[in-house]
């Protein structure tokens, strides 16, 4: 909301600087976002001196001038040939600037002569109504300076953010009234007297058919109006408020809207068939062509202003093209009404239109200001326009507004605010707010008709706090019972996962929950894959952010791409976040962990020892994770995920449930994401992991330092290449070898001199007894048996 201080000062005595006024408003809940001068925003409009004037014949009416701003010389064409002389100081608008009447100045060429700007008239510069002469300044005026600075024109305008509850502040007068309430600065009362006998009887008829949507409808007819450009002072004020002028009638309705906050609408009287004005709901199938050229189909819940035959206006929102006031309009019907804010809001939402008018109706207008606005518009027309006659006001107001009574006690106020606010203070503020009556300990407050935001005792408490000053209210600490609940295990779990990955040298990333369907489609998923059935956004910001993620992979891959394109080749990143699936109710949200490894591990050091991440880095990370969490994760080769290289992938299982996967991305997908191989990724369902984690947390068994030494024996053998290590391990496990503490794989080798299709494997068996030192013979005996069984079972040969 733009408030020019010059306009504001007509209604309230301003006893402070613009900055101070801004601060007062801000601290009262009406944030002043900026103070600016619309004249300065016009662009570069400067003073220049005329150096040379020439009038080439082919330019006819125009002449060519050279002007200077003291530094540069500009060539400019002007039609004010007879007014211009060398040495004059004039107002010059450079290309890119705007004139007061919204013309954009540009370079232009007429018959080969280039004009580098424009010399302005006082009207174009927004200084006076004079259009037919150049703005000529005193010759002693310095050139190259801002015109408005030179002339001393200052029009500070406040840009105020009005909260949606305060519709009463969407006008100059509303702000004046509020400043008066806060500061006590004198407010000029608004009274417009009209002589009844001066007005003819309204020849038409007004009927409110829907009293739930329209509470009050008033209007009058003005005959013989000459529709033309508005008087200068109106143009100027519209300009200061950032409104474009249309014509004098429409401008006056806008002027009154800005001044008093009451939207008005002007109709061409002769377009209202039968002179009958019906306020009714739209009928099914009715259409309306708006002023802005858009045509809509109306909804039966929309309220319209119609004549006998057709809708003319979407009530309180936007006028129809057909009934609009235009150049040839002679008689004008002026409407001032009070519509149901809710119904207006629903219509604007339905048709996606917001206008200055609907904005105010939605936020509630002053029901008692309806006639005042009509009279104010009439007054402006009477004083500044050519017209013949004005009708009486017809005011259809079936159920006059009644302010609610709000009951509140001092005790209530003190309890909510939490301090002993003084009785006199409270009473003084209540008096300023509205009508107050005291009934014992209870105050009955009736707010004025423009303060429809006040309905509850709590609203009154806020007003007391606000006018008392939020800053003056003490700061205390709550007095409450000492209690504290246990942190939620799921939150602790996510935190733990993040800490673990941090300790593994990973950086946490946070990517958008909405992803690009194209990224998802690059993953080569089977058409039946659940991950392709993502929940789509109805109104995405862009297609790149248009579906809810069903996997963290696209986010991780896009992040890797962003990094790789910006000098980061080596990356270890992870993300913990929700993925979303369609489900009954809202959606299924699953907390998920994803991570990615790219390029080299660790930092490149000067020792030349550097290596790329490989499958066993990936697996090791997962194994360590399982160890730390004490969950029995199983890694089953090979994963069927269609984006992973089958031979370098596994699915992650918890008991019989698949909870994730890990592996190398397929080359073609890596390339489609503009990444480099090898690229390792994994994803795990943390919700499933959590369930298991919570169950296993009691199973910790602490180990003590050994009391007796262990001893080891190695077995090296050559066996079939396709016998998995895990198979060997499982076999050994089921042998239940006595005193065996653990088995390690110490070497693995394929190639010469090992025959093709075979591998050599060396295992180390650690033996230990809890209660004594094992004797060599004892171990030998056991171990020989183990070796025998192993060789037999796998048809292995000793190496």
């Amino acid at each position, binding site marked *: 909301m733009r408030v020019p201080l010059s306009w504001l000062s007509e209604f309230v005595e301003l006893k402070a600087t613009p900055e101070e006024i801004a601060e007062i408003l801000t601290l009262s809940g009406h944030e002043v976002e900026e103070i600016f001068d619309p004249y300065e925003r016009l662009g570069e409009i400067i003073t220049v001196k005329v150096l040379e004037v020439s009038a080439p014949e082919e330019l006819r009416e125009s002449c060519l001038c050279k002007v200077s701003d003291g530094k540069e010389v500009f060539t400019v064409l002007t039609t004010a040939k007879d007014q211009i002389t060398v040495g004059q100081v004039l107002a010059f608008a450079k290309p890119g600037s705007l004139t007061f009447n919204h013309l954009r100045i540009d370079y232009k060429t007429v018959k080969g002569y280039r004009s580098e700007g424009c010399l302005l008239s006082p009207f174009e510069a927004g200084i006076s109504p004079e259009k037919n002469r150049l703005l000529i300044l005193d010759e002693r005026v310095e050139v190259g300076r801002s015109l408005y600075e030179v002339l001393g024109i200052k029009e500070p305008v406040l840009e105020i953010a009005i909260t949606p509850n305060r519709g009463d502040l969407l006008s100059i007068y509303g702000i004046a009234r509020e400043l008066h309430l806060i500061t006590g600065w004198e407010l000029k009362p608004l009274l417009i007297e009209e002589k009844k006998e001066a007005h003819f009887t309204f020849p038409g008829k007004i009927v409110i058919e829907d009293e739930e949507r329209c509470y009050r409808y008033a209007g009058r007819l003005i005959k013989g109006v000459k529709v033309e450009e508005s008087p200068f002072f109106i143009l100027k004020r519209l300009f200061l408020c950032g409104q474009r002028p249309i014509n004098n009638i429409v401008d006056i309705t806008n002027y009154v809207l800005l001044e008093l906050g009451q939207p008005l609408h002007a109709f061409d009287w002769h377009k209202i068939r039968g002179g009958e004005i019906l306020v009714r709901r739209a009928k099914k199938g009715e259409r309306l062509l708006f002023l802005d050229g858009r045509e809509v189909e109306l909804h039966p819940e929309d309220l319209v202003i119609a004549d006998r035959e057709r809708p003319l206006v979407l009530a309180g929102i936007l006028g129809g093209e057909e009934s609009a006031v235009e150049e040839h309009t002679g008689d004008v019907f002026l409407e001032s009404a009070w519509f149901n804010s809710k119904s207006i809001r629903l219509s604007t939402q339905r048709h996606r239109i917001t206008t200055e008018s609907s904005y105010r109706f939605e936020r509630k207008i002053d029901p008692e200001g309806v006639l005042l606005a009509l009279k104010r518009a009439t007054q402006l027309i009477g004083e500044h326009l050519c017209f013949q006659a004005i009708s009486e006001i017809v005011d259809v107001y079936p159920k006059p507004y009644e302010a609610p009574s709000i009951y509140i006690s001092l005790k209530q106020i003190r309890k909510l605010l939490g*301090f002993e606010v003084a009785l006199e203070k409270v009473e003084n503020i209540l008096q300023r707010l509205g009508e107050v009556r005291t009934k014992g300990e209870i105050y009955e407050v009736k707010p004025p008709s423009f303060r429809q935001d006040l309905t509850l005792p709590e609203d009154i408490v806020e007003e007391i706090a606000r006018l008392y000053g939020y800053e003056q*209210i003490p700061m205390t600490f709550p007095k409450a019972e*000492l209690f504290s609940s246990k942190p939620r295990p799921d939150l602790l779990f996510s935190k733990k996962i993040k800490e673990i990955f941090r300790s593994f040298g990973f950086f946490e990333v946070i990517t958008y929950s909405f992803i690009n369907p194209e990224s998802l489609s690059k993953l080569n998923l089977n058409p039946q894959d659940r991950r392709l059935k993502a929940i789509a956004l109805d109104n995405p910001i862009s297609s790149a952010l248009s579906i809810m993620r069903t996997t963290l992979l696209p986010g991780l891959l896009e992040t890797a791409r962003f990094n790789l394109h910006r000098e980061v080749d080596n990356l270890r990143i992870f993300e913990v976040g929700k993925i979303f699936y369609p489900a009954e109710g809202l959606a299924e949200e699953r907390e998920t962990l994803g991570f990615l490894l790219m390029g080299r591990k660790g930092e490149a050091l000067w020792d030349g020892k550097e290596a790329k991440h490989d499958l066993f880095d990936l697996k090791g990370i997962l194994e360590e994770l399982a160890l730390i969490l004490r969950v029995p994760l199983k890694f089953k080769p090979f994963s069927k995920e269609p984006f992973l290289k089958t031979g370098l992938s596994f699915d992650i299982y918890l008991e019989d449930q698949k909870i994730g996967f890990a592996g190398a991305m397929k080359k073609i997908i890596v390339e489609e994401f503009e990444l480099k191989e090898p690229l390792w990724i994994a994803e795990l369902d943390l919700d499933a992991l959590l369930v298991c984690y919570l169950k296993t947390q009691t199973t910790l068994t602490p180990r003590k330092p050994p009391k007796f030494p262990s001893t080891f024996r190695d077995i090296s053998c050559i066996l079939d290449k396709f016998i998995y290590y895990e198979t060997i391990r499982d076999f050994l496990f089921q042998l239940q070898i006595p005193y065996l503490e653990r088995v390690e794989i110490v070497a693995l080798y394929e190639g010469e001199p090992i025959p093709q299709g075979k591998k050599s494997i060396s295992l180390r068996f650690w033996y230990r007894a809890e209660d004594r030192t094992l004797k060599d013979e004892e171990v030998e005996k056991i171990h020989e048996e183990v070796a025998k069984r192993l060789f037999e079972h796998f048809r292995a040969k000793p190496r």
Partner: protein
Amino acid sequence: MQREELQRIKEEALKELETLKDPIQLENFRVKFLGKKGKITQALRGLKELSLEERRELGSELNQLKEYLEFEIEKKRREILLSEEEKILDLDLTLPGRRPFLGGLHPLTQVIEEVCEVFTRLGFEIVTGPEIESEYYNFTALNIPEWHPARDMQATFYLQNGALLRTHTSPIQIRTMLERKPPLRIIAPGKVYRCDADVRHSPMFHQIEGLMVDGEVSFADLKGVLAYFAREIFGEKTKLRFRPSYFPFTEPSLEMDIGCVMCEGKGCRVCGQTGWIEILGAGMVHPEVFKAVNYDITQWQGFAFGLGIERITMLKYGIDDIRLFFDNHLYFLESFK
């Protein structure tokens, strides 16, 4: 073996002992005097030829010398070994080290942790809620009916299944109050979504919601708790300002500003020349909200507040572009290690 000879050996040994510089010399010295054919060993053997008295006298002296030399040799050996490694080697110690290489948590995660920690200290419990929400929890129950202009304050993403992406963490207030009875002290961090994207707005960002409901908890208490929070996060000397504001789910409502961290209140681009920066919105829980969760408004009152994590992080670290958080470039992430 004569006394003079003993004297000579002793002098020789003590003199030579001074000159020993490395373990080889030391070993030679030991062999020379204490070895099997060493001078002192020989001398001890030669004692046999002497009289009992002389044997005792010289023997004791020789043994003393032997012990002394053994002790000195050991001492010298230790000295030499210690000093030997006090040499500067042919290694450039200014080369970078091999770091254990820890990763890092996202700056937003760190700030969320920090804020939650401040409130858990005050006995607030951390709770969360779904990111895909219904109109009811996100708006209606918070006293923002469909036709309310306050819906304009939050541009909402709707989903094709009719649900929406929560526009604030406030629905968690409703969910928690429906599940539990007062008294309540909760803090609820999470992702929220709004149809907005530029240098200062991200379509996804993080908020933390706070709610306290108790018998007497008041507006003055709200100011107290918020001031405590702001000073814990931004420092003891942070200047604070409370302004009236409007949220449909609180009454009275307020916004808290802190003295601009960039210009210290002098006025700059960040604070729009005002010297103040808004950091959160808050207020006393609106009676309509209590009604929606069936709390008795004559028995309970409370406050709620909501703050934007990105905004606080940007202010704390002087970050001027919100998109940096979601680009996740390693250089950016590493700086918060």
